[in-house]
């Protein structure tokens, strides 16, 4: 397999001709994507092998976080196939939950959304209980100019506010440097 070297560049971008605020260029191996920079959020790099994890301010004792990773895959996702087989995702997550001592609660069905810049986001999520805390996690597979960008968001149930931030970040994502 040929490895694609991606450069994700963090920079300021203008979306639909409207300047919404500062942007972050996430660059890895010469390929970049751009996301909105949020006040008081912190960007972690190379944590657990993950190139970028963006952390919210602390709320209810924890920081919510969302990661951005270039999978290197170059393909267009088959929505029907993903929808038909989403039970696999559920099965995977039930198994994963056991490995960390968590219990899955609810699953958010697979759905596809389109960002402001016209990128498709394939979303699926679930909630789980871990050490008496309930988490909401969502996997986002973004079709970014033919490349698949993976993003996962995680928050405490009570940090619903950050869900909005996550959606803003995802919908504002610019695959310009990919």
């Amino acid at each position, binding site marked *: 397999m040929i490895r694609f070297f991606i450069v994700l560049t963090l920079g300021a971008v203008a979306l639909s001709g409207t300047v919404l605020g500062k942007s972050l260029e996430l660059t890895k191996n010469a390929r970049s994507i751009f996301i909105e920079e949020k006040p008081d959020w912190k960007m*972690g790099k190379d944590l657990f*092998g993950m190139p970028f994890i963006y952390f919210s301010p602390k709320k209810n004792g924890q920081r919510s976080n969302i990661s951005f990773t270039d999978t290197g895959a170059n393909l267009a996702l088959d929505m029907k196939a993903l929808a038909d087989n989403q039970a696999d995702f559920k099965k995977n*997550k039930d198994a994963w939950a056991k490995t960390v001592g968590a219990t899955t609660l609810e699953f958010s069905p697979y759905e596809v959304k389109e960002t402001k810049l016209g990128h498709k986001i394939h979303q699926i999520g679930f909630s789980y209980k871990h050490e008496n805390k309930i988490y909401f996690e969502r996997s986002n597979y973004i079709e970014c100019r033919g490349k698949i960008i*993976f993003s996962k968001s*995680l928050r405490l149930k009570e940090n619903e506010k950050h869900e909005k931030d996550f959606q803003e970040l995802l919908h504002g994502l610019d695959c310009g440097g990919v």
Partner: protein
Amino acid sequence: MKQLLALSLAFILTITSLMPLSAIAQSTSCENGECVQQMVDRLNDLTAVYKQQCLPKKELTDKEIVEYHEKNGLTEQCWKYITEITHLEAELQKHQTKLETHLGCENGECKGPDSLGDDLNSQLNALGKVEQGLSCNETKKQEIKNKCGDDLKCAFVSSGMGMVGYIAEKFVPASEKIPGCHMGDDSCATQLATGLIKSVYSFFEGAWDLLKAGGKYAGKKAGKFWKWVKGGDDHASTSQLAMAKASEDEGVFDMLMKDFTGTMSKLFEGLVAALKEWMKNDIFCEKWSAVPHFSKCEAPAAGFDCISCKGLVNGMCAITGIIIAEVVPAFLTGGMATAAKHGVNGAGKIAKLFSVSAKAMEAIKASRVGRVALGAATKVDDVIKVTKGLKIAKAAVEAALKAIKAYLMNPARKVLKTSLTALTELTKKGSVFLAETKTGKIIVFGGKALKTTGKIVIYPIDNPMTAWAFKAGERSFEKIFKLGAPKLVKASAVTSAITKIDPALESTLAKIESAKIPAKPDARKLLNLEEDLLAKVSPKRVGLLDDILASEKPNFDEIIKHLYPELQYGPLSSKLGAAKVLEAEKELLEEISKMANGPVKDELLKRFQMHVKSGQARNKIMGKLQIRPEDAYAGMKDVVVPEIKGPTLAKMMSDKNYGEIIIKAPVERRRSTAKALKLLENSGQSPSEAAATFQKFEKNFNHVLDKAPADSDSAAMLAEYIKRQRKAGVADEVIGTKLDDAFKEVCN
């Protein structure tokens, strides 16, 4: 108290007589001094008894002790005590030497902790070091805990070096290289560290199977999407949950954000420490309060605390995959913050988060790590068992040595040693004799002692009594000493005269004396000795007797005992018979009678008469032959009894001397009475003397007259007997007594 001591001693000596002196030590093993206390107890008892019975009660100086023994000698009983004591002391000192050697000491000085040898101290020191090396004390636990970081850091860094690409670069900055850390040394730790690193960093290293799809993502392959993304998606789930939890602590969160690599190294340490706790308190827990793995572990597995981190990881080598798959996620999501913050100190808390499948549990139990821990604990147990045994032995040896020392320092023993030294010195100084007395045998040291011993038999001791004699432990004099021929302590005129004719007879005389000492003498032995003496003496007896009688103060008893043994009316007399005895009596009497008149002769005659008076012993041998009137008559056939006719009787009745005597007698006995008076007159006595003699023995005459028929010559025969006795020099009192005894016998 005295009785108690005597009883105690009796018991001691009884037991001792039943078994050899060393039997105490031999009957049971005395390797660790087991026999010592018993020996010391015996010694203390013996010392107390010796002090009480063999030395005066008052405290004596050393000089006075010497003088005391010089004057009083040493009884055989005391000899038994002191030889027993001496022998036991020698045995005790042998044990002391052996025990000191066994303990690793010499003359009270014990070997140092680094000494080598098979003695107890050396063995205990060596085992102490082994135990210290194996035992899991708090110091060692801390040492292992402290070392854990370096051990694992090396593995962690080595793992980084073993990987390619950016990970290696990130994990091994030049400054981070650890001296002496070689990858190859820690393959198992490296394997685990690599597994952890991969699980943390493998987002690009294969977890992301989506790449497998390549450009051919269509049809059936499209349906596998969720499976392809599983690795990457799950990794992100774990990592992001771990970071979300880490963010609860700003310090930990900052640490990870600023130096994730460095923090991971610390996390690795925490992981291993947590694994150790988990295995100790869960997987290998030896006792649960209720349901295993779901209740409290009441007996954590021994041996884990002191397994080094490297050792633990090596033991888990075969199950690294299980650890990574089933334990690490829980560690990252639940224990990372604790591990990052507290390192190995958070192990207990983190370990509680771990939970694995039953299959994984079995695999872990079957892994080498359990055997390693169990092996360590078993080794410690083995060493402790051996050490415990040696410590018990050491305590026993020390107690025995202490008992010996206490005995040796006992003040009573000092007196005893002084006494022993005094006795030894006295034996070297002069003649030593064994004296036999009625109260027992005594060792006397010549000079002063002999002067006070009186007339006893002594045996010169040919070989001097030496310390060897004491040490030999022989408790019977005869077994120790080569005794010379017995002697009499004091020579008398009689014994001197006898030994003059034959010096060898002194031994015979002494042996006779000795044979008479026991309460129940050996009659046969005595008889043989007396016969021997008599055989040698009798041919020259009259001459010897004359010499003795001519001496200044002849001793009648000595004459009888040594010169005329048959006149002791014992077994010898019986064997010889009455005739021989009578002959001897006659011989003795005649020789005494030949002496010049004077007080010496009178005394001897008196003693003779007293001696031959008819006592039971003599009567038994002699019978009543010589004093019965009939026998007397038979012996006096030549006696002419005067005839008394009527006119003579009348004339005598009117005589002023005889009249009253005759008239007083019954009519039928008057003639017999007159015969006796006339016989006395005919033998040279005047009528008044004859009347006086009759009156003196009137009781005896009346006795005869009462028993004899009327007109009998019996009274006259009695008169003849008296006359002859007088002529023989027998005192009237003696004659009277003899007659009284004789009539008493007859009447009875």
